[in-house]
């Protein structure tokens, strides 16, 4: 049997295979080198950056929950300038595709970042994290208001020649509405999902575990919500989807692809086992072989046919 074609192409992004790693869980690409061969990955998504450096939230920033992880890192990052100077040169040398992730607290923040990141930066795409409060609009999150989300994506799209991936927040009543909004804004692809807002209280100290009170819930616990959103958006919106949220086994990855994801991204799963991305790749390949699929792309959305 001829080998399964693993390569994937969507929204102008070419990947060796559909396995990515999630922003914020994989640093700037060098941290996991001793644990997982980057050249085996389809690509990595870099830690979110903001225009200025941020120290982020105080610790504790993490709390373990049943099959889940709460994090409140608070977007700690070196800022754009330092990113361009000290990190990007190394990122360019990574043996896999790199997607930058940008965050902002105003439209201007996003534009500033997007303008600085073009095709000639060597990046494969720009992921726009809209799960941030818009400080100029009373803290309403860009990611929970379709209008703001559309504006941000449109503004970013206007100033960069890189493919633009809109990363949606699951903390909304209507994920399809959000997807439609960013499509109107011109998004080339979608990342689904960011973390669910949660919290955990230390009953001995009688106060929240996280210094920030609230944190984002990730890991296997949220997978059913993530798969549902990928499914709904796949049905309603014609944009390629990068599926994420609790992927820890190859079966999970296949589930996301059957639901409609063109590629999958692994976040918290790396913490459980840094070889998860490789195991997933192997698992997907075997799955396709057993079912006689010529290309991994044939899996996308297959469960909708039933």
């Amino acid at each position, binding site marked *: 049997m001829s080998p399964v074609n693993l390569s994937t192409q969507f929204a102008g992004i070419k990947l060796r295979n559909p396995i990515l790693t999630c922003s914020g869980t*994989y640093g700037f690409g060098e941290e*996991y080198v001793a644990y997982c061969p980057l050249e085996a990955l389809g690509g990595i998504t870099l830690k979110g950056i903001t225009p200025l450096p941020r120290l982020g939230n105080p610790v504790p*920033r*993490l709390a373990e929950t*049943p099959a889940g992880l709460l994090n409140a890192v608070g977007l*700690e990052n070196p800022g754009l300038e330092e990113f361009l100077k000290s990190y990007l040169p190394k990122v360019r040398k990574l043996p896999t595709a790199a997607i930058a992730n940008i965050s902002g607290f105003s439209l201007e923040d996003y534009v500033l970042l997007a303008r600085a990141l073009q095709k000639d930066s060597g990046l494969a795409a720009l992921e726009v994290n809209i799960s941030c409060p818009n400080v100029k609009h009373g803290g309403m999150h860009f990611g929970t208001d379709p209008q703001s989300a559309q504006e941000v994506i449109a503004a970013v799209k206007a100033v960069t020649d890189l493919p633009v991936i809109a990363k949606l927040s699951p903390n909304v009543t209507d994920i399809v509405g959000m997807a439609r909004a960013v499509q109107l804004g011109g998004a080339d692809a979608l990342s689904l999902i960011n973390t669910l807002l949660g919290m955990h209280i230390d009953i001995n100290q009688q106060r929240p575990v996280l210094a920030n009170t609230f944190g984002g819930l990730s890991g296997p616990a949220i997978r059913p919500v993530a798969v549902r959103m990928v499914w709904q958006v796949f049905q309603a919106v014609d944009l390629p989807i990068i599926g994420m949220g609790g992927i820890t086994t190859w079966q999970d990855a296949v589930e996301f692809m059957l639901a409609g994801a063109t590629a999958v991204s692994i976040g*918290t799963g790396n*913490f459980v086992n*840094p*070889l998860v991305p490789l195991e997933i790749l192997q698992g997907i390949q075997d799955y396709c072989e057993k079912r006689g699929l010529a290309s991994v792309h044939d899996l996308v959305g297959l469960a909708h046919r039933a």
Partner: protein
Amino acid sequence: MLTEGQVVVHESLGDEEQRLRRLVLKGPIARTAHAGQFVAIQVQDSSISSFDPLLRRPISIAGISSERDEITLLYRIQGRGTEILARAKCGERLSVMGPLGKGFSLPEKGELWLVAGGIGIFPLYPLAQSALAQGLTVRLFWGGENKSFLESAGLSSWKALGIPLHLSTLDGSLGQTGLVTEQAQELLKKSSASGGQIRAATCGPKKMMQAATELFKNYKVSVEVSLEERMGCAVGACLGCVCTLVDEAGVLIHRKVCQDGPVFRGEEVVWNESC
């Protein structure tokens, strides 16, 4: 390095009520490990995945035998994760990442003072061994709850090293009554050795390490401290475990306990509770 360590010893350490365990794992980690480094261990049999609990647990390397390819982990059953870990049977394989982080450094010569609070003693033993092997003079200040704790947590092995031990317990059941730092202070006062000839390393509760750092600063003794923080990735990728340091210019900066530490110079640590 990600390896499957085979459990070769897993036993209760001392008094059962102390809930301490000794776990010896066979695998290649021993070959490159240094005192002060740690591992991130999966707290369940690696053959069937369960995602509750989800995360690995950071545990210091408390013994290194490169000839036998064995590392020793000493831990206290603290919560659900360590409770599950404690069930691992001899012969089982546990998934271990390590050695992780940067360990303690050793001076060329002179005296090394070790200051331990409670189970903070564990990573200091391989450090004492290395220091002695290098011909340094080593002494230990160790404070614990009570006699039962100190004896359970390895007092006899420390005695076997033949170094001066300054013990203290909160209830006075062994050694002096009171805090471990008080003993160090007494000796520093009396000591003829100048600060330049002494180096210190400390591990234990934050408050204790802070007090030790201040004490040693007064005597111009440079001290290394081993910090703890909740970890996600354990390799520097998630920024979950930062600590705050002050750099030479007086600017507050973040460092990752897992990658840049867990050992830092005491003077650069900002000890405020949560930033």
